[in-house]
């Protein structure tokens, strides 16, 4: 299943050098689709079923539990104690409505599939986040890898100089690479505006000095590593991140991390908030061959003043997401990039006396677009008040299996943990939602 990655990299090198010398061009942008041959061969059965089109994932995570009734699953006919002041707006896709804070996305509804039937039993943030990211409920004896690390491990790299999984604006306690070896852990970017900091050698350091410093580091650690390298994953991890850091310093694709290289109007189009800039960063990274970029947007936990917060927060998502969809489409990258909007749970349909909504894992919504997903559709449904799933229930493991399916990855391939227990990208029993593809 693993193809020859070197060929892909050599081809990339050759093309970018030729482009530069012959045409004065930098590879990137629409040229990026030249590189769209996969680093792994999708499972023929999956391709037959309409999967395996995606090469990349941009995973937008709404942390805190995004309200489903006010966004992806509006209920204009529900009593006002459920509906609140939210209006449902029609969209470019017939019969699909969205909450009124998503007018931008409404224009791209022909590109998206709304999953309105998510349902889990994890109603606390930490556990819910963990479940959505890994497909497993948290246990005290193992940390499961998150979907980005699964993709990094199963799909491999496209660009050998860049990490396969980048996490933008992630909160602490992200499950990250879980029990996988360190190379599959995400590269965290705290602030997209700052990008990848400290990537250039200090101005007072020569190349020779830098090399000597690296050699001396190894030498100084010789005894330490002899003793601990084998038994301590954290020690191995530090040796690996130093190697990876030096590789990245020499990468020709570092400008992928540098938003100042992006034209001003494109930066503005994604919105000035940190989240919007993170989404833009995700597009730049995916263009240059990063497999999986997760961008986290925090602050959706609206136990009070739900509708005020919604008016402030959802437009930020709307702008970044709708810009991303049109940008990817314009660059010819939408078919090869799966765009995901996920969250840990929805919000209780009945509005509380504080005008808030509480945690509600029983029924909530996520969104998928691109990567072979058929646009303009809704999968699953909730009842009149958004309180119960009445059609096509989807669990967190199913959702992750669907991401695997889109990439043509085996969602049910067991990978052994260090304690020799088998775990799968699609969780214990996840089944991909194949009906939304093709």
């Amino acid at each position, binding site marked *: 299943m693993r193809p020859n990655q070197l060929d892909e990299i050599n081809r990339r090198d050759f093309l970018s050098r030729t482009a530069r010398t012959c045409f004065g061009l930098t590879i990137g942008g629409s040229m990026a689709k030249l590189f769209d041959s996969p680093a792994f061969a999708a499972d023929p059965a999956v391709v037959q079923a309409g999967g395996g089109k995606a090469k990349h994932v941009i995973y937008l995570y709404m942390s805190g539990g995004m309200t489903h009734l006010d966004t992806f699953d509006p209920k204009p006919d529900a009593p006002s104690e459920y509906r609140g002041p939210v209006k449902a707006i029609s969209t470019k896709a017939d019969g699909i409505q969205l909450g009124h804070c998503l007018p931008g996305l409404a224009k791209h509804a022909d590109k998206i599939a709304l999953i309105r039937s998510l349902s889990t039993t994890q109603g606390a943030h930490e556990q819910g986040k963990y479940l959505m990211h890994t497909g497993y409920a948290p246990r005290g004896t193992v940390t499961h890898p998150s979907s980005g690390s699964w993709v990094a491990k199963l799909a491999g790299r496209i660009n050998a100089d860049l990490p396969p999984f980048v996490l933008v604006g992630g909160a602490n306690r992200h499950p990250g690479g879980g029990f996988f070896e360190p190379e599959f852990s995400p590269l965290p970017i*705290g602030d997209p505006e700052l990008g990848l900091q400290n990537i250039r050698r200090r101005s007072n350091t020569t190349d020779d000095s830098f090399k000597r410093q690296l050699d001396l580091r190894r030498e100084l650690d010789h005894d330490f590593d002899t003793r601990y390298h084998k038994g301590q994953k954290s020690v191995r991890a530090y040796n690996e*991140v130093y190697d990876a850091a030096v590789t990245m310093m020499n990468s020709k694709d570092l400008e992928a991390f540098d938003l100042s290289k992006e034209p001003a109007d494109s930066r503005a189009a994604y919105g000035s908030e940190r989240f919007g800039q993170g989404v833009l960063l995700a597009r730049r990274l995916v263009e240059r061959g990063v497999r999986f970029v997760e961008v986290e947007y925090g602050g959706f936990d609206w136990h009070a003043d739900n509708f005020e917060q919604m008016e402030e927060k959802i437009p930020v998502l709307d702008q970044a997401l709708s810009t991303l969809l049109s940008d990817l489409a314009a660059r010819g990258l939408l078919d090869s990039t799966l765009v995901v909007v996920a969250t840990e749970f929805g919000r209780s349909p*009945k509005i509380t006396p504080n005008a808030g909504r509480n945690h509600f894992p029983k029924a909530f919504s996520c969104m998928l677009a691109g990567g072979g997903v058929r646009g303009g559709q809704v999968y699953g449904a909730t009842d009149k008040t958004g309180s119960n799933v009445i059609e096509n229930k989807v669990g967190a493991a199913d959702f992750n299996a669907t991401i695997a399916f889109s990439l043509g990855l085996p969602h049910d391939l067991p990978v052994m943990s260090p304690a020799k227990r088998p775990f799968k990208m699609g969780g214990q029993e996840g089944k991909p939602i194949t009906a939304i593809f093709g």
Partner: protein
Amino acid sequence: MFTTPRLLALTTFVLTPLAAWSKPLPEATVEQAAARIDSLLEADLKRAGSTPNPRVDDATFLRRAYLGIVGRIPSEAEALAFLDDRAGDKRSALVDRLVASPGFDSHLFNWTADLLRVQTRQEQFGLGWHVWLRQSLAGDTPWDQLVSEMLGATGHCVTDPAVGYYLRDRNMQLDNFSNSMQVFLGRQIGCAQCHDHPFDTWTQYDYYQMAAFGGGIEYRSKEAQDLIRKTVQELSSSKTAANGPREIKAAGKNKNAEKKRRRELQRANKTLAGQFRPIFKDFNKNAILDDPGAMLKLPDDYQYRDGKPGEIVAAETLFGEKISGVAPEDRRETFAAWVTSPDNPYFTKVIANRLWARTFGHGLVDPVDDWSEDTVPSHPEVLAYLDTTMKGVGYDLRQFLRILYRTRLFERECLDEEPAMGMPLAFRGPTLTRMSAEQLHDSFLVLTRSSIDDSPTPAFTKSWDAYRQQVTNLLNAETRDLVLLGESARQGEKLLREAQAGLRAAQKARAVAGTPAERSAAQAEFQHAREEFLAARKQADPLRAMQMGKRAGARDNNGSLRASEHPAPFNPGSLVREFGGSDRQTPSSSDTTATVPQALALLNNPKTDIVAGKKSMLGRQLANLKTPRERLDCLFLTLFSQRPDAAEQERFLPLAKDPTALRDLARAMMTSNRFLFIQ
């Protein structure tokens, strides 16, 4: 090997002397308690046919003690003082000195604030809670009292800063309750908030019974409410007086007219009260009150047979001492007393085990926050003894930790292999740990400044006192001043509403803009509207305008403040956050996972360049030293807290002759695992 159940006999043996302890503990008592822990551990090892790890050398102990107890590496002078000390009891003397120093307070504060998720800049209460916690720990407030003060806190944060514990999760009482159970009692019952617990015996109904102890909490200020009422009464009675007694008398003749007049008066008072409310907007974000009439109800989607949606649930404890039928006004005090009681089956063991894991890298019960009825610790006798010890020292964390640091275990070589998650560990030695982000931050201070002052700066306390003064002034303001303030607050609100409408319109325009030109125009318009909105929001609040705002605390202009002296959490992208410093979102969210940006920060960030530049103390010091030997010693002592051994001297002395090579060596040491890990 881990489950020998003869603990009772053993614990009663030492219970009596412990109960009579006074602070600080007498030397003999500390020795006795530490020795007891060691003998229990070593007996277990012997039974398993294993042996404890050998004792570490002085240099390793020195570094471990400084980082573990005061949260930073020792300076060169501190290292020399210890290494060259010939006294036989120098290790215990060092432990005792460090435990009693302000560095201990700073380090313990970081740990506790991470556990409790203190965010310094949350409204105004965050700062108050931060200051309160810092002072309580420094002042040795016993843990049971500290927790009880938080769980029982009520009112405005200026009178009871511990109320920050509840305000931290404003309007999220159930989440706050789940966290309390996990943080203080090690019980994870959060799942039962929505459904019966999948693999514990907790039902959703149980959860609500326990949570019902907090059912009377409301997130508003009684202080503001009372003052508004008082002011309105004053204004309206003076108005009535001005109208003259005759009118009232005349109205009194007709019952209907009287009723009408009352209704009008009520309406007028309500309007009047509404005019003052904007002044106290911030009060409601910084205070809670207990309403004896408010009861917790089952959720609307409750689906089990033992209750109906919307039904009131009576507060009842489900383990430990059974408590039910509590008077509504006593609910929280009862709960606080129940949680922190020495008879609570978890409270004492959980904190003892947390501190054990903090000291040795792995819990006797691991993970430390997932206990159940049938939890079996790896060393039941040790845990039982720690439980007795914690009670014996009266929940004094400093004295408890002092005992742990004085064990032979704390002097043993660390384990070659990392312990398996959630598996029992034999404790042949402590675990190898990566420095926490705060330990790294504070160690940088040692590297960049020759001496380090561990004592806290007064900046936070000053800002907090100033805020308290302002709130007090407001609460005691004259009625006419309140009228004026109310006026300005209302104007501010109006401006805010307008700005909000403008922002929404701009957002909408931006979303539907078609061409790039339209888009960028719409974006500019939006940007403008947003600035106006933010400015209006700032102004809308007279209290916020008149007090110090959220930028409280010391300014770290010259980079000399310890991590504990910064507002928490640090910003994303900062060195502390890059190294996994807590985001203060979930209990104990500090993280030590390796990442590429960390390596890049140590390799390339000018701020981590400890030997170059005019500001570098180490660079200047090295330049002043005459011989290569002195320079090499200085580097090794400063970074590794030890002199180079013979092989290292031979290998590295040539480098110490050339300034560039020496600088490269120093930088390499900075990036080494030997530096970053605590053995």
